[in-house]
């Protein structure tokens, strides 16, 4: 995974969750991160869409299981 993608994703999560020390791994899930609730999840998705100039469907968003899958989805949209 490119550093640009990972750094951008980390920035979006840190801003959305107001947590400057948040560290993401590919296996990070919502349950492990304080404040990552359903509303924040959608806000993160919209921020990612804007930052990476991609678009997700509701089904794609609901199927995401962890940050690694999210990153892979972004990458697939950028091809």
């Amino acid at each position, binding site marked *: 995974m490119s550093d640009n993608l990972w750094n951008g994703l980390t920035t979006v999560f840190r801003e959305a969750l107001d947590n400057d020390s948040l560290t993401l791994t590919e296996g990070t899930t919502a349950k492990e991160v304080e404040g990552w*609730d359903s*509303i924040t999840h*959608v*806000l993160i998705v*919209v921020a990612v869409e804007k930052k990476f100039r991609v678009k997700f469907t*509701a089904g794609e*968003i609901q199927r995401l299981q962890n940050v690694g899958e999210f990153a892979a989805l972004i990458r697939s949209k950028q091809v």
Partner: protein
Amino acid sequence: MELTLHHIGCLVEDMAAALETYAGTPLATGASAPVAVSSQKVRVCFLPAGNGTFIEFVEPEPDNAFLLRMLRRGTSYYHVGYMCADLDKSVQALVTAGAHELTRFQSEAFGGRYCVFLITAQQQMIELIEAA
């Protein structure tokens, strides 16, 4: 999709203190009593702003992490509320335009009618309220 502007939502840390700020001014005249919207973990009240529109003060409950984060960042005005005759049709039109649905709930502030929060592709929050 016919929408009518109803209110601008404004986050406040303390409802009583916010209302006191406007006491004796035209804005406070006719302010509604605060109402708890339980599913959203907030209390709200409406201050008439002319032409059938309102400023909605929104006070998050202590366990409303999302809105409390916004307050900590200094956010005040944060959403625009519209009345709509056909809620589902209006939601679908905005989703088609790139918005995402955040939450759908029945609001005590509107007699139990359905409301939907959406966020646009440019990260602006919109509340659609089912017209009576």
